[in-house]
C-alpha cells in the first residue's frame, strides 16, 4: 500500500517537473490556459462587456489569496481525516 502511494507521488511529481525541464533555455514563460483563451477571444474582435467587481491589487496578493484558498481546504481536509483516525484508534493507550 505505502509502496503504491510512493510510486504514485513520484509519478505525479515527475509529470509536474517535465515542463520545467523543457521550458528551461527556451526562455518562454509559462502562460495560463485561461489567459490564452481570453486573448484568443479578444483576437476575434470581441470586447468583454463586464469586468470583475474587485480584483486583487497585485499578482502577489492574488497568489496570497490562492494560497489562502488551499489552506482553508487543507485545514478542513486534515481536520476530518484526523477526526476519523482518532475515532478508529483503540482507546487503550
Amino acid at each position, binding site marked *: *500500500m505505502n509502496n503504491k*502511494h510512493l510510486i*504514485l*507521488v513520484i*509519478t*505525479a511529481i515527475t*509529470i*509536474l517537473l*517535465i*515542463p*520545467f525541464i*523543457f*521550458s528551461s533555455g*527556451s526562455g*518562454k514563460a*509559462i*502562460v*495560463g*490556459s*485561461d489567459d*490564452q*483563451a*481570453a486573448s*484568443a*477571444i479578444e483576437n*476575434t474582435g*470581441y470586447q*468583454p*462587456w*463586464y*469586468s*470583475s*467587481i*474587485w*480584483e*486583487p491589487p497585485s499578482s502577489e496578493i*492574488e497568489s496570497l*489569496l*490562492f*494560497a489562502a*484558498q*488551499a489552506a*482553508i*481546504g*487543507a*485545514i*478542513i*481536509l486534515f481536520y*476530518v*481525516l484526523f*477526526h*476519523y*483516525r482518532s475515532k*478508529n*484508534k*483503540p482507546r487503550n493507550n
Partner: protein
Amino acid sequence: MEGFLPWQWCLFWYALSIPVVSYGVVKIKRFTDKNPESKPLLAVSGAFIFILSSLKLPSVTGSSSHPTGTGLGAVLFGPAVTSVLSAIVLVFQALLLAHGGLTTLGANIFSMGIMGPAGAWLVYRVIKGLGWSPSVGIFLAAVIADLLTYMTTATQLSLAFPIPTFSESLIKFMVIFAYTQIPLAIVEGILTVIIFDYLIKLRPDILRTLKVLKPEETSESNKKYPEAVKE
C-alpha cells in the same frame, strides 16, 4: 474570464445550472438528515475541490492550468451534490480572486460542477459494474472529471465564438484547454486515488452506505485494515 461570454450565453448557462444546483442542495439536505455521519465526508469532498482548484500547475505545453478536484465528490455523492460544492468554490474565486467571474458563473458551474462530475460518476459506476478495482475507478473518474470540465469550457467558448466556424473554433479552444489539461488530469487522478484509498482505510462503513463500495470490497478492506472496523 469575467465578461467574456455574451450575455445571452451567460443567461443560457445559468438557466441550465441553477436547477441542478438547487436539486443538489435538496439532495444534500435530505441525505445528511438521513446519514448525519456522512457530513464530514461531504466536507472532505468540498475541501478537496478547494485545494486542487487553487493550484495552478504547469503543463508540458508551456501553459498552466487548474485541476478541478471534483472527481472525489462526484464518486462519493453524485454530480448534483458536487455542483453545489463547485458553485461554492467558483463564487469564492469569482469574488476574491477575480478568477472565473459572476457573469460566467453559470457556464463554469455547468462545466466544472455538472459535466465533469457527471462523467466521473458514470465512469466510476461502469468500472464498479465491471468489477475492477476501486482505485482504477477513482483514478479514471478523476481524470475524466478534469478533462471533461475543460472540454466543456472549450465547447462553450466555441458556441459563443464560432469564428470563423464552430468546428475551427472548437479545435482552437481544445488545443488551448484540453491539450494542456492531459498531464494535469493524470496528476489529479493520482492525488484523488491517494485520498480515496485513505478514506477506504478509515471509513469503509460510510463508503458502503454511499454505495461507493460493494459489500465484499468493504469486507476485504476490513480484513486488510482490521483497525478500521468499528466495534
